[in-house]
Every structure is written in C-alpha cells, then in structure tokens.
C-alpha cells in the first residue's frame, strides 16, 4: 500500500488546527505554547551572547555534551538514592539535572581549550571531536542503562514538548502552579532575563572587547566561564522539551533573525522575544496541521521567519544598490549649475 501525497499531508482543517488549541484544548495546548515560548526566549537571549562572541558553535558542543552529563548524573543518583520515590521527586530530579549539566558544560569548555591549546589541532576540530565523543558516551550510557536513566534516545532527538501538559504538576503552598518542566523553565527564563539585565554592561563589554573589559576590572575569562555554565543550565532545562539538537536552533535562530533587522542591542533582545512568540504559536499550528513533532515545527517556523528576514534584507540591499548607482550616475554627469566656478 503506497500512501499518496494527500495521505502524507493531511487536509487543512481550520477548526482543529486554528481554533481548537485556543478554545477546547487550551488546557493542554496552552502549556505547550508557554513552554515553547519560555524555552525560546531563554535560549534566544543566551544565544545572542554567543552570537556576539562568535561562539555559536559552543552552543552546539554543549548541547550535545549535556547528554552524558545527564545520564551520568541520573545513574549516580539512582545508585545513591536507590529506586524512584515520589517524595521530593521533582526537586531531586531538578537538582540532579542541574549538577550533571553544569559539570558537562564546564568539562566541554575545558576539554576543547585543552585540546586546542596543547596540540596543533585547531579549535573547530577540537569542538567537533569533544562533543561527538561526549555525545557518543551519553548514547552508550542511556542504551546500556535504560532502566536506570530516565531518558530515551527519541527524547534526545526530538524532545517531548507534547508530553509537557501530562507531567506531574508542581504544588507550592497548596496552589497548583503547573507542570514541573514548565515551572522549571519559567524560573530559568526569569533568571536569564534578570541576569542579562543586571550584568548587561559586563556581558556586552566582555563580548565586544575583552581587553577593555579586563582594563575596566571585569574578569573576562570568568564571565566566559559563567556564561558557559549558564548556557549548560538553559540547555538542560530546554533539553526534555526540544531535544539536544533542536536546542541549537533555539539558541541561534532568534538572535540571527533579529540581527538581520536591527543593530541596537536592546532592540535585538526585544525582537528575540517577538520572534519567540511568533515562532512558537506558528509552530504549534503547523504541527497540528501536519501532525509532526511540535518542537521540530516550532524550529521550522522560526527558520521560515529567518528566511523572510533574509529575503527582505537581500531585496532591500539590491534596491539600495540600484538606487545608489542611479543616484551616482545622475550626479556624475556635470550639471551646469554645480560646475566649478
């Protein structure tokens, strides 16, 4: 039986694609949209710092190496604390994830530096070797100890943002605050935004001019190291909803799109929030229509926004260029009024 194209691309049903998620299904779809938006904003803001430092591919490296960190942390935790229990489950999971991720992030940074400083292997090759090795260790670990590690290979690749609404809800002082991953991501996002605003000067100066930063008393290497640690935290919180590889897109695409449109840094950060909102909502609708991975669809719609912005810049530049040549052609011909007297 050969499926036709119509079978592959379902018909566009306005009601189920566009209306239902905001009305009848809002209880579950709302959480998905919120989760996607929070993830995208946190990743976008951290990723903008990476883009400024021309280190976008460190995000690539750390997002892969978080996997072995998580796997090892879960393994150690399951050996230390025995089987799973429900009491204190969420808090324990979060802290275990945090420790594993930060350790993996810093280990990656250190190993890359080690290889490219102490041998003649260049930095790009060092990044490629380190993240692939760590990722391979992670995959082997989660395959071997599938019953101890609360991760699976699919989650690593696609993320499971669709399962977010069905996760255990976080209860604080008797109030139901929402699913645990969303609450965790919200905390991380708020801290990311607050941290960027609070240390805006330090971050910006050390990204643009490490020498100036040092002379002003800002320890640029420490800023770098802390940024890498924070990157690992953001990635690990985004990990279970978008997976190891799509998180790279979340890091890079919003900032790249914004920097095609604006050039002032505060505007860029605002545009990243806008981009996140549009791509999240559009991605949800796309995923509902095509019935595919929601995180994948969110990234795809983010990339479509990037393509729009890119096309617009190319067109505008071509028009400016034509305009400039016309203009210079008209001024080149000497007019009698403006000739030398």
């Amino acid at each position, binding site marked *: *039986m050969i*499926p036709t194209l119509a*079978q*592959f691309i379902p018909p566009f049903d306005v009601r189920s694609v566009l209306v239902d998620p905001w009305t009848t299904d809002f209880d579950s779809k709302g959480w998905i949209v919120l989760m996607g938006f929070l993830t995208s904003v946190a990743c976008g803001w951290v990723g903008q710092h990476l*883009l400024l430092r021309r280190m*976008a*591919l460190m*995000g*690539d490296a750390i997002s892969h190496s978080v996997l*072995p960190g998580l796997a090892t942390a879960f393994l150690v935790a399951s050996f230390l604390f025995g089987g799973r229990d429900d009491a204190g489950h969420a808090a324990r999971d979060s802290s275990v994830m945090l420790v594993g991720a930060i350790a993996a992030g810093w280990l990656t940074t*250190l190993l890359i530096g*080690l290889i490219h400083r*102490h*041998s*003649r*292997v*260049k930095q*790009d*090759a*060092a*990044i*490629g*070797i380190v993240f*692939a*090795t*760590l*990722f*391979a*260790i992670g*995959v*082997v*670990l989660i*395959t*071997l*100890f599938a019953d101890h590690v609360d991760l699976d*290979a699919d989650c690593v*690749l*696609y993320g499971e943002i669709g399962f977010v609404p069905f996760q255990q809800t976080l209860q604080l002082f008797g109030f139901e605050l929402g699913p645990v991953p969303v609450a965790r991501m919200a905390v991380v996002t708020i801290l990311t935004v607050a941290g960027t605003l609070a240390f805006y000067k330090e971050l910006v100066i050390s990204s643009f001019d490490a020498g100036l930063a040092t002379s002003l008393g800002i320890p640029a290497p420490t800023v770098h190291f802390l940024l890498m640690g924070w990157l690992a935290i953001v990635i690990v919180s985004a990990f279970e909803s978008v997976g190891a*590889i*799509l998180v*790279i*897109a979340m*890091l*890079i*695409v919003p900032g*790249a799109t914004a*920097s095609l449109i604006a050039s002032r840094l505060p505007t860029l950060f605002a545009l990243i929030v806008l981009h996140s909102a549009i791509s999240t909502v559009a991605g949800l609708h796309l995923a509902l229509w*095509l*019935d*595919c*991975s929601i995180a*994948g*669809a969110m*990234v*795809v719609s983010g*990339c479509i926004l*990037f393509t729009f912005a*890119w096309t617009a810049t*190319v067109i505008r*530049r071509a028009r400016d260029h034509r305009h400039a040549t016309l203009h210079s052609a008209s001024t080149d011909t000497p007019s009698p009024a403006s000739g030398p007297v």
Partner: protein
Amino acid sequence: MNCPSLTAEPWRLRSHPWFTALLLLLFLLALAFAPSAEAAKIGELSVNSVRTQALRFLSLQDPAVRYALAGSVLLGISCGLLGAFLVVRRLALVGDALSHAVLPGVAAGFLWSQTKDPVAIFIGAVIAGLLGTLVVEGIKQTTRLKEDAALGLVLAGFYAVGICLVTMIQRLPTGAKSGIDKFLFGQAAAIGPGDLKLMAAVAFVAIATVLAFYKELLVASFDPAFARSAGFPVRAIHYALMLLLAFAVVSALQAVGVVLVSAMLITPAAAAYLLTDRMHRMLLLAAGIGLVSGALGCFLSFLGSNLPTGPLMVLSGSTLFAGAFLFAPRHGVVTRWWLHRSRSGRIRRENTLKTVYRILEDRQFHGDGVTFRELAERRRETMEDAECQARELVRHNFASLHSVDRTILLTPDGRQRAVELVRNHRLWELYLTHAAHIPADHVHEDAERIEHVLGEDVVRELERRLNYADTDPHGRPIPTPNAVHAAGPSEPDRRPPAGYGR
C-alpha cells in the same frame, strides 16, 4: 629523577604539564567509562554469549557480519580520507553542518521510494547536503552573520525540517517506515548488499579523486590565493570537495547515524594531523585510523545486544585520537613534556658542572675536590640540593665522590664537558661584545642560555672569527678543551683581537 630539589621548586609543579596531566586523566576516565559500562552489561549477558558472539564475528561465517564489517571499513576509509582536507582547511564544523543537513534529504528519499532504497536516499541526501553548504555560503555572503551563526542555522534548521518529515513518515500507515530511525544513530547490522555496493563506489570515487587531483586539492587547501593566481578553479575545487564529502557522509549514515557522522570525518583526520607533517602521510594515516575505528566499533556493537554502532565507532576513534594527543612522536603532550623534562634536566646538570669548574678555576686549580658546602654556597642552594646535584653528576659519569672527605672530583669526561661549556659561554660573550657591540655587562644572560646548545661547527667558526682570542670581555681566560690549564693571573687590560677594533 627523584631529587628533592624538584619538589623544592613549587613553580615547576604548578606549570602546565602537571595540570595538563590531571585534566587528561579526567578525560581518559570519561573515555574509560563507556567500555567499563559495557563490561557491566556484558556481565549481565553472561560470558558465554559474548564469546560466541566474538567467535561469530571473527570467523566471518555470517554474511550479515561480513556486510557490516566491510561497510564499516569502507566508510572509515572514505570518511578519514576526505576528513583530512576538512581538518587542514579548518572546515571541521562544515562537516558537522553538512552531516546534520542531509536528514531532510534522507527522509525525502525514503518518502519518494517508499522503501529503504539506498539509491533514492543517497540522491536525496546528497542534494540536501549540497543545498546546506550553499545556504551557508549564501548567508555568509549576503548578511553580516558570521560563519559560526551560518553553520548553526543550517545545521539546526535543516535538521528540524528532517525531524518533522521523519515524524510524519513514522505516522504513515505503511509498514515500510521501519528502519528510518536507524539513520539517526546507525546500525551496522542493517547494512545490506545494496548499501555495500554504494559504499564501495563512494570509497572508490573518493580514493580515485584524491589520487587524480592530489596537487589541485593540496594547493587549494593550503594556499587558496596562490592557487587562484596560478589558475586553479578554487571555487570548483571547494564544491567538488563538498560533493565528495556529501557522498561520504551519506554512505556512512546507515552505520554511524546522522548525529555522529561528522566525528568520523574529523576525529581520524585530527589524530593523523598530530602524527605527521606531510599531507600524503596524513591522508594514509587518516584513512587507516578511520578503518580501524570503523572495524572496532562494528566489533564492539556486535558484542553487546542492542548497542548502536555509531557511538561505538566514534568512541574507538576518540580513543585513538587520545593516544595520538598524548604520545604522538612530535606533537604529543606527554612526548613533549618528557622531552622538555629531559632537556631541562640536562641544563641543570650542565650548570652544576660549570659551577664546579668555576670554583676550581677561582682557586687556580689548586687541590682537586669541591665540597658540597662550596657548591651550595656558590649556587645559593641548600646542602641537600647540592648533594643531590652532585649525585646527578656522578650518575652521568661526570664526577666521582671522594669517599672520605665527601668532595666532588671531576672525571676526565666531566672536565672535558665543563671546559666546553665555559668556552662556549665566554666565546659567545666575546662575540656579542665585539660583533654586536653589546655592552659587556649585558651579555651574560644570553650566553647562559646559548652555552648548552652551541654545536661544534659554530664554536669553530666563532673561534676563527674572534682570532682565537683567549680572554673573554670580563678578563677571564677562555679555556681550550685539550690544553692542561696553567692559567696564571688574568690580564684585565688585554686589547681586543685585531680586526674587531671599533
């Protein structure tokens, strides 16, 4: 060396080799974790089944084993060979982007053929990979985004499209969808005869192209500006290389998977880069290391029950890389550290020898033993250090210790070497003051460093140029190795040699 003087110099301990060693230990622990983890799993499986599996693999009776092994070997060769060009051109992460960008092509090829037809998947993936590299170039040229952002965008964007397609395929009602998930992490056991033919063709094309266009690839990789001026089509060569890389990536997908195939390009080539300085040797080594890691990964994944092949191949490659990183003949960390250590040990030894000679010279060579106290005072060190240094001299046959009054006696070898060092030092000082017109009180430090490395020929030439002078700028005699010393009091007002007047 087990001298306490080593520990008496804490800066030496804090300098980078030790720190490096510590970090490397961590790295190796991380690497060792996977094999030990596997051992734990194997323990569960019981030793017998592992042995039968290993025998089954090694006897190559099973056609599935033969296909898997041949495929792994072929992909190792073609990836290693082409990866070498990526590493020397600093394009390693282009390989990464390319390998993620093929995913939508794989899915489209799958969809087109409705089965796991290798040719359709191959064509789709090559088109997607090339499109990815073109988009990277386009973003770099028409926007102000830098290369890292462009690579990341293409990598993640194409991958996201691929993930959407893959999830849509998995939803299809047909039974043909089985196997698409094998493209993500790879399974060598899934290699069929059709895949094998394709891999052989890719390896053949890669080897033939590299052999036929070796000069063009070499010039375009190492000096693009020169290549362009010499009339080589540099852009065409670049895209041809990208096409070949796309072939290699796609042929490796089945066994290694989309996510890790870039490591098969980078790791063997980087290891080879550490082992040699010649491009043709690097190509051979990279292909060889790729071959070994492919075969090893295939073997290991066969031992376990349900292990994906790709990660194990990558780990085998990384272990080989770690070996090269540590023990490469010229560029290995441990090798260089060892060389540095033996060299600094020699310099310390020679300085002690020189001090002994200077003490003897100061007392006009009367009496022949130098006590530890004298040595310690002259070198401003403790008695223990002096004794340790003296023992070091004895160990290298430069001196003997007088058994009764415990003084240092130079052997003929030791005296010979000491005279050479002092002569080197003073000749160099003289040369600097006369030929380079450096003030006499500024030349000591330089001579202190160069005395250990001046060769026989250079010393001859210095002597000739300085007219066989016998006094240094500070008025001390320049000893000659074969003469027995009858040095009288020095003559400070001696004229500089003829021909070097100011």
